[in-house]
């Protein structure tokens, strides 16, 4: 798939060393639109929307924030957030900025851990961008949905 000019420009600033040290694309050679569309296909098959995923991540991060750096037990998960001064601008240049905050979540039942940044939440929720394969903050949509126990029977998938 050929990369459109706008995505090609966005892609430059997503490379390692431009906005963050390791960038957003990892070793993924696919055009940006293809990375996004393939992840959306995965979510469609699971009947989970990226918005619902982002919201679930944000809720856990908020619980971690309330504990201000301490690990908090939310019932199903142990959540710890770590904050740094400053913020990061969204690489999609939508004027949104995210606090430099990382959340580490441990599934109490399985011991499995996942981590994300506030920017990761925004990228998933607003842009359906789970980052390129090989990126340190890449979250596989299927694994993330399973980790967050989505979809839930009481919560219909979003269109």
């Amino acid at each position, binding site marked *: 798939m050929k990369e459109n000019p*706008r995505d090609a420009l966005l892609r430059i*600033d997503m490379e*390692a*060393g*431009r*906005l*963050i*040290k*390791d*960038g957003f694309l990892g070793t993924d050679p696919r055009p940006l639109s293809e990375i996004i569309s393939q992840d959306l296909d995965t979510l469609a098959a699971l009947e989970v929307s990226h918005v619902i995923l982002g919201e679930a991540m944000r809720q856990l991060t908020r619980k971690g*924030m309330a504990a*201000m*750096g*301490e690990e908090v037990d939310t019932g199903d998960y142990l959540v710890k*957030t770590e*904050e*740094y*001064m*400053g*913020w*990061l*601008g*969204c*690489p999609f*240049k*939508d*004027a*949104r*900025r995210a*606090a*430099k*905050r*990382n959340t580490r979540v441990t599934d109490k039942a399985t011991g499995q851990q996942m981590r994300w940044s506030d920017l990761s939440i925004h990228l998933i929720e607003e842009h359906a961008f789970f980052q390129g394969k090989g990126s*340190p*903050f890449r979250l596989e949509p299927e694994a993330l949905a399973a980790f967050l126990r989505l979809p839930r029977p009481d919560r219909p998938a979003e269109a």
Partner: protein
Amino acid sequence: MDFMIVAKTVGSLALVSGVLAVIISIADKVLNNYGQCKLDINQGQKQLTVEGGSSLLSTLAGQKIFIPSACGGKATCGLCKVQVLSGVGAGQVLPTEEPYLSEKERAENYRLSCQIKVKSDMQLLIPEELFNIREFICELVELEDMTYDIKRLRLKLPPGEEISFKAGQFVQLYSKPYGKVKEEVFRAYSISSKASEKDHLELLVRLVPDGLCTTWVHTALKVGDQVRVSGPYGEFYLRGDCEELIMVAGGSGLAPIRSLVYDVIEKGLPHKMRFFFGANTVKDLYYMEEFARIEKDYPQFTFIPCVATPEAEANWQGETGFVTVALENQVDSGQGKEAYLCGSPGMLSACIRILKSKGFTSDTIFFDEF
């Protein structure tokens, strides 16, 4: 035979590609040669003749006019706004700028200076205070571990040069290429040293995971290196229209507070000061002896370090719990007080909420967002 055909084809293609690259390169130089352009700043206050072809942000920086920017010209921070009254950039907002400019700003001809190329003569309006910002090539003379993730940088200004700043302000620190990072980046760091010390600067830099500039400081920077900074910047400085200063910091947010405390003491100002310093564990604390000494020598200053979860072996005797709890319990009202905050966004918003509930207003709470 087939191999020869393939080899010849590949060779021809490579030759064609090479020729095309040369043509494009020459065309770029010829067609995009904008020549010299005149920049009129603030209706004749400054008139510059510059080489066209670069972004307005970098062109101005080349003329020692430093427009604040947090993203280094990548259109993700929206800070580098200037008014373009005439010239190529006037009234032609690009899609990359749209999210950052309000209707009012567009009507007043604001543009992101990182997104406009200087292609012709331009008339600009730039806030006058930005003309005081200077660039310094400093020598790193000390690099000290204050904690496991915070380093103190002591920078010596070039001989004969001085920096005048208000305690609390910040500088931009420019990193050099390292590892995967192929270009210079810059980030804002509060000055932690005394404003009276004009030939040196001290900064406190906490390592941020995946941080471009902090990783450079923590892994690549060495004593003796040349380090570029520009400044001073920022609106975080002492107003002092009060009797008492409530200061709250966490982590490397201690930097501007240290400078402020020394400023009040050195100027002999009458303000009482209470400094709440929050840390997660005892190993996150630093400058403890220094602030204890200031507290002993200057009765107007009270130091309240707070540790959220002290390690058992640390035998911590001070405040235990979040800094916000100490703030809530120990500050009765906003009457006669100003608050100066520096820390992570979560800490800032929690503190602001508490302070406002006690009668502080937006006019009496000061903080830096970076």
